[in-house]
């Protein structure tokens, strides 16, 4: 796997505030790599150092093999950037923005196809200021894709969007990756990082506190998985006896909770449901609580993620 992005010992301060402290990571070709963490964790500072928009105090940064500070033209031609705070003129129409931005690149992709791909065809003649938040973000993604980039930066792409718009954007990001592009994104939604990213770096106070695939991050912490349900009558002892080892059963009245510590072959929920079925125990209100990245963040930092 070729390294598209290499960061070694990146350090950036603003006055007395340390924004990014000694961050190192690499992003491989074709990956969706996410930086996740609360506001102020250093995600945007890091991504802006990679984009060449900010100058690091110390550390080595290589993007597509070049130093963003010295060869910004290469980056501008070969990467697509969606910024957290940026805008287009209020009265520019969607097609005009695409047509204009396409003219900046020597070999742009056909913007008419992007318009269709991003579901903006009906909005072709709409002024930028009349677009919804989700449509604006889709337009920004389209602009980022115009140079047919090898690497796409997406900074807080879905902040401020409703859940439906967010899911549309996730599908788009997966589709972009399926065209062989590498994606580096930041988000403060743990769910987004978990569902979208191949690997996730969790940032807090300017440092990477964990870096791995979402599944490994979740399992490495030994976070409990829980299944709870209510039985009609009492739970037969044969049920408890038949459960695999490493599980623990708690009964409170008719409510049963089964705990397990992860790293299992079969998900706990299927084992429980199968067993309930085979022993013909009637039950209702079955719920599962899967550990997620939110739990990982909580256990790493001792704090809940702040919105």
């Amino acid at each position, binding site marked *: 796997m070729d390294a598209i992005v290499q960061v070694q010992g990146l350090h950036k301060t603003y006055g007395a505030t340390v924004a990014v402290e000694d961050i190192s990571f690499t992003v491989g070709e074709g990956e969706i790599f996410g930086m996740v963490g609360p506001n102020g964790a250093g995600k945007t500072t890091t991504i802006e150092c990679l*984009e060449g*928009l900010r100058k690091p105090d110390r550390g080595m940064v290589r993007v597509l093999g070049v130093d963003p500070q010295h060869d910004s*033209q290469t980056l*501008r*031609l070969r990467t697509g*950037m969606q*910024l957290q*705070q*940026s*805008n*287009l*003129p209020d*009265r*520019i129409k969607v097609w*005009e923005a695409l*047509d*204009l*931005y396409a*003219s*900046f*690149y020597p070999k742009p992709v056909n913007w008419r196809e992007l318009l269709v791909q991003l579901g903006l065809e009906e909005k072709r003649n709409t002024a930028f200021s009349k677009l919804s938040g989700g449509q604006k973000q889709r337009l*920004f993604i389209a*602009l980022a894709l115009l*140079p047919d980039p090898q690497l796409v930066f997406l900074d807080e792409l879905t902040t401020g969007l409703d859940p439906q718009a967010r899911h549309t954007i996730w599908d788009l990001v997966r589709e972009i990756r399926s065209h062989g592009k590498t994606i580096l994104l930041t988000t403060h939604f743990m769910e987004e990082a978990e569902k979208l990213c191949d690997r996730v770096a969790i940032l807090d106070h300017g440092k990477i506190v964990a870096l791995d695939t979402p599944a490994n991050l979740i399992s490495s912490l030994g976070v409990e998985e829980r299944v709870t349900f209510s039985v009609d009558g009492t739970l037969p002892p044969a049920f408890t006896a038949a459960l695999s080892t490493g599980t623990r059963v708690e009964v409170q009245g008719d409510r049963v909770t089964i705990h397990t510590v992860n790293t299992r072959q079969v998900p706990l929920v299927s084992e429980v449901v199968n067993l309930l079925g085979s022993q013909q125990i009637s039950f209702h209100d079955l719920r599962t609580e899967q550990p997620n990245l939110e739990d990982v963040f909580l256990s790493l930092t001792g704090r809940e993620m702040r919105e």
Partner: protein
Amino acid sequence: MKSLLKMTWVEAKLFLREPASAFFTLIFPLLMLLIFGAIYGANPVPGTDSTEAAIGALIPAFTGMSIGIVGLMPVTITMATYRENGILRRLRTTPASPLMIMAAQVVVVFVMTALGVLLLMIAGKLVYHVQFTGNALSLAAGFTFCSLSFFGTGFVLAGTMPTARTAQIVAMVLMYPMLILSGAGWPRELMPAAVLKISNFLPLTYVVNLLRGLWFGESWGQHLLDVGVLAVMLIAGVLISLKTFRWE
């Protein structure tokens, strides 16, 4: 080059979609002519010898006014707003250069100002039968030279003022005295000596002097001071504009 043309075209459309800038550039000089024409159409302005000449003198004066307004208002507001709203920030991630972005603005405001001045001249001809005695080519060259010398001010203000609001206020503070005291809105012949001294410090005065001279058929050689002042402004404007350009 392709992107400069595209950008110019898009900026031109955006300019016309903004009612305020379109009004002040295209319609305002014309309105001024009609209003002032009605006010002192019958009374020859001192220093000129006929009503036609008096109205005629308004045309280069209002052309100067137009240049002053456009250089200070639309250029400043557009550039400062583009910076403040993150529009330049978005452009910064592309290969678009500051020079290209500024060049597109210059071309658009220049063409719009020229259209406004053309309307002004047509109205002068049709309504007041103004006779133009100068050399058209020389006047066109003078207009271009004056416009380009003046537009730099807007870029410098947009680049140096902390917010779009401040840039706009400073532009207005600079603009109003110039419009009144440069001879653009009120003939310099009618100003007392003390006011004339202030007038001599205003760059727009030199624009009005040069354009008025060229309008009445005087040669460039008779206006070396005006040309000199404006040439310094032109060079300083370009250099400082490029130096003070900020993406964010």
